[in-house]
């Protein structure tokens, strides 16, 4: 950080709980209910008895979910895995869905201190034009994939809604399933992107602890905690078929964050029963120019505990296992609870095609660089069925 950044001083930052101009305010009590429940969640009070009771129940209650996320559940990790696998098989059989993310731009107006794309990080920025997007998508489609997740850095200026919409329209030519992981927007903008062909929206809340959130997201629209929180609800109201949730585990108290993530999804599913629910389970990864960040707090056991608790709590939800995890972890987690896996991943810009000068740096380091064929074969070797699409755009 060679130049002075004024937001590093707390008095220079805007209020993270106040909406900025143009941000849609929802009439919804979901945020309040999630925060109240998360604050009340005392994971140390749960005992082995609570965990056993949770495993004995046919339907997993919110209290059972809380117990499964508690430290008391750790000695039962194998029993929980057996139950999680059973639920996964009942709802998904042995299907494992494949997709790849495509980063089309990495310009960002936010200053999030843990993220490689943050506006003060000196990285190579790029934004693919329509022709380049088409070339990248054509190259990806050739690998056999039929689902794509379109990502941008969070810059409305450099990647406006229309630009993202054009990317969706191009994607419709090459893919059956289009997901978005872009900045949160208003419900009419989600409706527009739905018309352009997208049907799934994922927004990571990062952390549900608003005090911690304030210290990590120092500037930009992402600083506004409640606007980000409402993204999934606005996406559903905009007509999206499914929404994805995630906390970036390790930013704050991961048990509370995982509880809030699950409860957030639970309340929205009850409010909008038709909405399809998805979870991602990222842990912090090292980023360029920041050696302090390391995913040390959430070990593999805890990560697995969180993934399995999501599965048992919402057995019908899609769960994606991130490329932040290594091949060994990913191969095993799809056997137990995850139902979706990426392959042939590049988290930089413009890396799917050769002779392209318009390339941008990556958001984080990935741990599993296997291509589509390798992941496809690995899924089959586990006795599972790779599925390229289980979706029809109507």
């Amino acid at each position, binding site marked *: 950080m060679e130049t002075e950044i004024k937001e590093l001083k707390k008095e220079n930052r805007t209020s993270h709980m106040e909406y900025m101009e143009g941000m849609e305010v929802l009439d919804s009590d979901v945020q309040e209910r999630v925060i109240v429940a998360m604050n009340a969640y005392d994971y140390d009070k749960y005992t082995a008895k609570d965990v056993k009771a949770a495993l004995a129940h046919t339907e997993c209650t919110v209290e059972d979910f809380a117990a499964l996320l508690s430290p008391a559940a750790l000695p039962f990790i194998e029993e929980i895995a057996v139950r999680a696998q059973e639920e996964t098989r*009942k*709802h998904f*059989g*042995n299907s494992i869905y494949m997709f790849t993310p495509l980063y089309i731009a990495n310009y960002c107006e936010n200053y999030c201190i843990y993220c490689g794309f943050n506006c003060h990080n000196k990285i190579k920025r790029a934004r693919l034009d329509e022709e380049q997007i088409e070339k990248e998508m054509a190259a990806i489609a050739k690998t*056999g994939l039929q689902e794509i997740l379109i990502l941008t850095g969070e810059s409305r200026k450099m990647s406006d809604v229309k630009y993202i919409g054009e990317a969706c329209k191009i994607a419709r030519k090459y893919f059956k399933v289009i997901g978005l992981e872009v900045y949160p927007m208003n419900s009419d903008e989600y409706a527009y992107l739905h018309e352009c062909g997208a049907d799934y929206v994922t927004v990571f809340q990062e952390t549900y602890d608003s005090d911690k959130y304030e210290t990590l997201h120092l500037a930009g629209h992402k600083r506004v905690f409640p606007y980000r929180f409402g993204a999934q609800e606005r996406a559903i109201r905009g007509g999206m078929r499914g929404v994805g949730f995630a906390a970036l585990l390790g930013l704050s108290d991961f048990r509370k964050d995982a509880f809030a993530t699950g409860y957030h999804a639970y309340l929205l599913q009850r409010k909008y*029963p038709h909405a399809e629910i998805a979870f991602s389970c990222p842990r912090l990864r090292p980023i360029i120019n920041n050696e302090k960040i390391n995913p040390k707090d959430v070990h593999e056991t805890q990560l697995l505990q969180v993934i399995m608790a999501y599965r048992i709590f919402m057995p019908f939800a899609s769960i994606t296992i991130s490329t932040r995890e290594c091949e060994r972890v990913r191969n095993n987690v799809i056997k137990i609870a995850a139902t979706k896996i990426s392959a042939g991943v590049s988290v930089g810009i413009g890396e799917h095609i050769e002779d392209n000068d318009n390339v941008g740096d990556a958001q984080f380091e990935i741990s599993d660089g296997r291509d589509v064929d390798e992941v496809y074969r690995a899924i089959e070797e586990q006795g599972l069925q790779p599925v390229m*699409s*289980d979706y*029809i755009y*109507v």
Partner: protein
Amino acid sequence: MSEVVKNEDKLVIGGKEFSSRFILGSGKYSLDLIKAAVEHAGAQMITLALRRANQGGMANILDYIPEGVTLLPNTSGARNAEEAVRIARLSREVGCGEFVKIEIMRDSKYLLPDNEETIKATEILAKEGFIVMPYMYPDLNVARDLKEAGAASIMPLAAPIGSNKGLCTKEFIQILIDEIDLPIIVDAGIGAPSQACEAMEMGAAAVMANTAIATAGDVPVMAEAMRLAIEAGRKAYLAGLGRVMEKGGSASSPLTGFLRD
């Protein structure tokens, strides 16, 4: 059961005859097991989610379904009648035939069918010449409306999809069997051969199963077990089940015996 010719005991749906009364699902298990499952199941009809049928893509389920088996594409993914109609039309366009199983869900948790929208879609698709087999929550009034709308069979659920919980709606399915003059095919929730057998003993025309087979340790062997159970249940139904004595043995006419005194 009017369409069943007892001496040959064929299941007739939409004018097409089937000697098998086991409709097999194709989801939730490895594609290379489909052929073996069909053979062991002796199935002549197999369902597939049209959304899984990728045109020309990798892992296209259509490439794995043996020839000669009647396809029963379903409209899963549809949240209302309009979407179901669109998926059904698409299914016909891509060559999946005239049969269609209507599945309309607006509940992502239990995947319970929306009966009202299902009636609407049945009416539209039956008029367009489809052989419509609606998946429904067992409600007598709805079943009558579906018949009126042109359904070729009625497919009431036994329990939520994938739950393997068995005949939770048994009494209501029995009412449909007794009252509706169409093949009643028990769909969803059948978790074990014994449950499939029981459904057939009740007089169901056929049973549809997927998860029970897909989640079994040995898919083809479970398909065979299910076939045998369905055949046994059917035979028992045709033979006429004996009286079930719920409260132990009964004395001869303890209340009305005086009439003979």
